[in-house]
């Protein structure tokens, strides 16, 4: 029975119990203005605007308070479908983070066998079957664009799901909170321990807890550097004291940040440091899913006993504060959507459990869009939450995101693994030889992007009478084609001399580079042959 009292739900937002001041309603120019919080059920643009329309509010001065002490969050253990999903996401993301560098991927004898490797020293990025060279950095840019669009997509579909489940800050905070629970006990025990004077028992517990913190933090920093070098080798070098100083510095910094941000800063990062909550508030609208408290159903709050004696006067919320107790950022979701809410949905689990115990329908706190909240408050039919996913904006984001991904995969699939750049000698532009012929010199850069040495053929296209030789053949070996072995995964610079008989005109021609293997990859680069004689 979601709408036991439609008349109450559709009326002005209910007053909070225990609020000492009357709602301040000022009538100005025929408009009633109020300072009352706006229910999510009536969250229409006008409501928010009217609330802040200029009028004379009651004057009141608070003592100047520049800084506020953080109230420590001791979130309570809870179980439910969202908690289990959070466990699952945590397991998967941590497994990916810690495990990925250890996956091996055979690339033959000339390339590293680590599946994911950012080889800064040699300027290569390996990701399973893909190898990116520095000049192909646009693939990485594409990946970053996809990551950004992916966030837009997720936000438009399911609100701040990234914040609630997958963000590293959330995952590590969750991990550290489990450590707290493991060492110090659940919420009440932790509050008690915090208040207790520092004795040997507390000291021991703290030392134990911080040791676990440090181990996790060190492990996290240590896993990071594994992405930048061969993991087994690096581990050995690291403990032998032979790794690069950058490795030790990186591990130290990341250990420190993980220890601080995960162990102590926690929700402060989300509320004060992270820009994403601010960006997301701009990206959400009344059709975005968010975790919301259905105040028209819950208010006014009253205990089970009170509700039994006067069932008409009280809503479903029994003010048990379980939703506050389990919240990892320590907010009260009943105050409405707010920047501190990371939509982890643990309060839904907690509230559903309480509702089941007292025999009231689940979903007093639930995933819902503001549109649906309004409809539900008015007693209209609502759509199931999953249908909120299918809306034009989400679909458009998905199509853009998907097509970028598809285009990148396509481009990666058809890209050429050879390359040729030609730099002509400009000083002097040409050389007259003793037999009267004209020679031009070029520096060719042959690029072999395969992880094996390849024989490549350099051929002249155009300039029918010209022949060429390269630094290793000498003029005796001058021909229309030259063959050169390019080492695996490297660029080879070759000096090429093109010689044409007397009387040749200045002309455009090109070098063609062809791999002499089954791929027969080929690339052509334009060049110019200068002679003293300029053709018409």
């Amino acid at each position, binding site marked *: 029975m979601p709408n036991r009292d439609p008349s109450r739900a559709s009326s002005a937002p209910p007053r909070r119990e225990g609020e000492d001041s009357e709602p301040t309603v000022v009538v100005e120019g025929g408009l009633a203005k109020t300072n009352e919080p706006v229910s999510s059920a009536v969250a229409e643009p006008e409501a928010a605007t009217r609330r802040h329309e200029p009028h004379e509010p009651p004057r009141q001065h*608070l003592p100047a308070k520049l800084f506020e002490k953080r109230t420590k969050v001791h979130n309570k253990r809870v179980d439910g479908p969202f908690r289990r999903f959070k466990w699952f996401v945590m397991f998967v993301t941590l497994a990916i983070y810690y495990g990925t560098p250890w996956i091996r991927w055979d690339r033959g004898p000339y390339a590293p066998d680590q599946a994911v490797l950012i080889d800064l020293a040699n300027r290569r990025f390996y990701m399973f079957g893909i190898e990116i060279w520095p000049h192909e950095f646009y693939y990485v840019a594409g990946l970053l664009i996809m990551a950004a669009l992916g966030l837009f997509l997720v936000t438009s579909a399911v609100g701040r799901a990234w914040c609630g489940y997958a963000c590293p800050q959330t995952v590590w905070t969750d991990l550290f909170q489990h450590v707290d629970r493991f060492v110090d006990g659940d919420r009440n025990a932790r509050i008690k321990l915090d208040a207790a004077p520092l004795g040997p028992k507390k000291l021991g517990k703290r030392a134990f807890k911080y040791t676990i913190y440090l181990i996790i933090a060190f492990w996290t920093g240590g896993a990071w550097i594994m992405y930048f070098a061969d993991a087994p080798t690096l581990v050995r070098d690291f403990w032998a004291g032979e790794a690069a100083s950058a490795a030790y510095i990186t591990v130290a910094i990341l250990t420190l940040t993980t220890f601080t941000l995960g162990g102590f800063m926690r929700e*402060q990062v989300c509320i004060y440091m992270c820009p994403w909550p601010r960006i997301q508030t701009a990206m959400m609208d009344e059709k975005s899913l968010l975790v919301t408290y259905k105040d028209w159903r819950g208010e006014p709050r009253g205990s089970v006993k009170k509700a039994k004696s006067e069932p008409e006067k009280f809503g479903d919320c029994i003010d048990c504060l379980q939703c506050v107790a389990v919240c990892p950022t320590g907010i009260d979701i009943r105050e409405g959507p707010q920047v501190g809410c990371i939509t982890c949905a643990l309060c839904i689990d907690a509230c559903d459990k309480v509702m089941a115990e007292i025999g009231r329908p689940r979903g007093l706190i639930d995933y819902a869009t503001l549109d649906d909240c309004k409809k539900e408050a008015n007693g209209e039919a609502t759509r199931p939450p999953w249908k909120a996913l299918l809306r034009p904006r989400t679909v458009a984001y998905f199509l853009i995101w998907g097509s970028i991904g598809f285009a990148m995969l396509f481009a990666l699939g058809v890209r050429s693994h050879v390359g040729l750049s030609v730099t002509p000698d400009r000083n*002097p532009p040409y050389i007259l030889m003793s037999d009267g012929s004209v020679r031009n010199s070029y520096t060719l850069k042959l690029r072999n992007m395969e992880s094996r040495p390849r024989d490549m053929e350099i051929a002249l296209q155009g300039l029918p009478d010209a022949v060429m030789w390269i630094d290793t053949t000498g003029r005796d070996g001058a021909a229309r084609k030259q063959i050169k072995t390019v080492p695996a995964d490297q660029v080879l610079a070759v000096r090429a001399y093109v010689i044409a008989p007397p009387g040749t005109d200045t002309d455009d021609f090109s070098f063609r580079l062809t791999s002499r293997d089954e791929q027969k990859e080929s690339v052509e680069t334009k060049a110019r042959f200068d002679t003293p004689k300029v053709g018409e």
Partner: protein
Amino acid sequence: MVNKRIDGPTGTETVGHEWDGIEELDTPMPRWWLWTLYLTIVWGIVYVILYPAWPLVDKATEGVLGWSSRGELAKEMSVVDQGRVTMREELSRIPIERLPENSKMFTQAVAGGRSAFQVHCSQCHGSGAAGSQTLGYPNLNDDDWLWGGDIKAIEYTLTNGIRAPGVEKTRASIMPPFDGVFEPVQLEAVVNHVLSLSGRGSRNALGAQTFQDNCSVCHGTVGEGNRDLGAPRLNDAIWLYGSSHEQLRNQILKPKMGRMPHWSDRLDPVTIKMLSAYVWSLGGGEEFVEVAADPAVKVDAEP
């Protein structure tokens, strides 16, 4: 006008300003934010103690660590120098004629030679080693060599110079001036004959005879030149001092003869080796042939 009030939903004071109905909450900063301020102050103090910080009249305070960007540069330079010393030592041990076979050493020698060339040689031969016809500096990119174009001959030329005064082993020879020796008709005939060697002038008996009598001793019977004497080839397309009738006449009557300083007392042998490798690599370098092992020439002493 400051118009502070308590915002209902949040219970927080506003900053007291209002723009078209938009007000700003005066939310207190978290306490730890203050710690970051103290932390930066501590960091600043530590930094000032450890690193150069306070500017004084001619320099800054030095800092306990004694770090300076100049010192850092000197350290990096010394690492580079160390590498260069190793390379030069290795280079000094390789006989020059074996150098092109060692591709790694050769590449480094060419790179070193290129920068030495820009400092010591480009003034005459040009930065691209193309020389200058008007000034008579030979082009080093082509395949025409007055004194030999294998790597060892180039090194000999660099070490001892050409017509360098006071150098015993310098490459020296002289083209005698023929001013007043030939009749005008005879002169014109020999100019035509010389041009005909490369297929440009008209062949004539008088010219051929005169050439045979006066020039072929050094330049060869068909004008093939003589590298031992530095006598240029006359039957090719390259003319150091120009190929017009006028320029040829001048060269016969009042010959110009190039000079090159010897570099043995100005550059160390390794730099000369690198320069040789660079010049040899420009595209006209010739294979070193064992029979020409001693490029030292036996010529008459400079008069």
